[in-house]
């Protein structure tokens, strides 16, 4: 973490959100939001309910078209992308932005392993030459599939689901489903991973494991993580950088220690923030 914070230069910006505004009819869900997320960092977006956190994610991953604003992604290997101009699925396919959902969205009737292999669809599709090489059973496709399975195995191992690889995803316990969704998002080899409340519904032991998983993803995969979370033990424990939203506006932006003591944040959260702090301390 200290190494990551030390190399905070302008060059390692991964995602630049500039003047993002999202309006639904008369409702201003996000109002002129700007922040930067960096590689090797966990950036958390927090705020009271209805602050517009998930709307930010939906703009980033193409489910909404922002009313105003620029979302610049500097892919470490591929160059710059302007996400607000890209079609939804291309953001994951080309710009390598992975995400999970607040209400888990797995493929419930398919097995755990299949969920992870579908995440590698585009690479396998290329290898199968629009299913032709696959239909003919060419070696080219078989090799690619084997590689996909190996990658899936790696992530199954990381989230402790190897023993349940052949279970239907919908039959997994809740905590396993959360971890599987993160593993699935990692299988698209993202440069930016957006996690929407990954600790929701987890017990304390599970959320501790989640912390370790996220830290290891950040350190080993060298990607940026964008995190929406209500669980302050997760947010304060692993964030390198926190952005606080309230009613669509950014009210604070800085490292955990700064945000924790920011009077505007405490005011926005009222009793809630103080409770969270008390539990933390």
């Amino acid at each position: 973490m200290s190494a990551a914070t030390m190399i905070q230069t302008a060059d390692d910006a991964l995602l630049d959100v500039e003047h993002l505004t999202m309006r639904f009819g008369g409702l201003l869900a996000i109002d002129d939001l700007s922040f930067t997320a960096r590689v090797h960092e966990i950036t958390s977006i927090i705020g009271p309910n209805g602050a517009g956190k998930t709307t930010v994610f939906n703009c980033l991953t193409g489910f909404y078209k922002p009313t105003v604003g620029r979302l610049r992604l500097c892919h470490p290997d591929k160059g710059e992308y302007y996400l607000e101009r890209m079609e939804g699925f291309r953001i994951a396919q080309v710009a390598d932005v992975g995400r999970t959902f607040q209400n888990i969205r797995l493929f419930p009737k398919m097995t755990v392993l299949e969920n992870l292999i579908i995440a590698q669809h585009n690479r396998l599709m290329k290898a199968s030459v629009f299913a032709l090489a696959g239909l003919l059973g060419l070696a080219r496709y078989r090799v690619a599939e084997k590689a996909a399975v190996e990658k899936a195995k790696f992530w199954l191992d990381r989230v402790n689901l190897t023993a349940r690889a052949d279970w239907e995803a919908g039959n997994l316990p809740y905590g396993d489903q959360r971890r599987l969704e993160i593993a699935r998002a990692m299988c698209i080899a993202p440069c930016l991973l957006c996690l929407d409340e990954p600790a929701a519904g987890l017990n304390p032991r599970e959320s501790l494991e989640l912390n370790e998983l996220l830290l290891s993803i950040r350190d080993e995969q060298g990607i940026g993580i964008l995190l929406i979370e209500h669980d302050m033990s997760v947010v304060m424990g692993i964030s390198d950088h926190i952005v606080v939203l309230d009613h669509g506006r950014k009210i604070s932006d800085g490292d955990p220690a700064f945000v924790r003591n920011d009077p505007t944040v405490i005011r926005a959260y009222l009793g809630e923030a103080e409770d969270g702090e008390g539990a933390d301390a």
Partner: protein
Amino acid sequence: MSEMTTSHKAASASAVSVIARDTLLTAVVALVLAVPFIGLKSDSVGTALTLVTRWPLMLAMVGAVAAGRVLVSLWRLRSAAKAQRATAHTAAGDAKASLAAWGNSHMKAIGFAGFALAVVLPFLPFSNRYVVDIGTTFLIYVMLGWGLNIVVGLAGLLDLGYVAFYAVGAYTYALISTQAGWSFWVCLPLAGTFAAMFGLMLGFPVLRLRGDYLAIVTLGFGEIIRVILMNWVDFTKGPDGVSGIPRPSFFGAPFSRSAPEGVTTFSDLLGIEYSSMHRVVFLYFLILALAAITNLFTLRMRKLPTGRAWEALREDEIACRSLGINPTNVKLSAFALGAMFAGFAGAFFATRQGFVSPESFTFMESAIILAIVVLGGMGSQLGVVLAAFALVVLPEWFREFEQYRMFLFGAAMVAIMVVKPTGVMGHREPTIRLHPVGKSKKPEAAR
């Protein structure tokens, strides 16, 4: 002790009253239905039409229904008590699960056995023209069911107008062969291609629709095609249909008693005596081959990225987009490939009948094909075969029951849905496994 008996008595008393109420209700409903259906019967005496009453028969029927209801209630009561008595995780559940597991692990063997049976069917001692003809019809529906299974079972796109693609395939062959004189083997791929193009044509406008809305639009599409065939008289010959469609040849050798100069007939080619059965059997093997290709294609496709994406799309379209899967391509490929197989089947239908008219492509056909897929268990290839057997072959056997035929047809459908709501073969087999089947028997132990 006495407390227990009183509570037991109270329970049985309430059970009796529940049964009495259910039985009474059933009897009333049966009576209301039976008066017009059984109680009154129109009979023609000479030229006059008279009304005959059959009250005793009607009462007997209502009585039978009421008695049946009592039996059902008692059976339910007994099985509920049994379930209560048995400890958690009943043995019955285990037996059921192991039966399903047996079915799945022997899926390949069952499939091969069925195919082998289909191959030898025309040569079995009891086989006659009638059996082979029914077999051919059965296989057409199996092939259509397998084709629709791609769209409905795998991709989860509810299509009520599937028969339109069948019609496109049939008319493609009918018109090209009668107008331009091209042979069946040239027209077969053309029919598939045209049908696939119509699949794309339907696919584009309905990309954003799902479920009920998609069903309505596809239903409309099916009707549009039929109405065009009916009314574009110059091109399609309208309601009269296209007749004189050439029959297929055995790679150039026609199935006829005699052939024009320079052409060898099939019987001469093999040096056997001419029989009208040759063509019937040849058509049977042709559709068997086409259906087998459809099946192999789908089975292979399921294990490829395209097929997995179809299933993922059925499960959750939003999650698909978040993984970089282009939903447009996935949907269009499902529509086009599903339609292509309907096109092949259509061309076969045209050459088999020698005549096509819009009457063969009504909504009823779409409904039957969809029923085959749903009753079979969405996405299950073997299920389609079983359901096609139930919906196509059984009604043929039931011909002796005459007016009760459609009743039995409906009853079979209801029975399947009551007993197995997910279809005959509702279980989904994973396309890939990390652990071989034998080892993953007890997944709980791995924890």
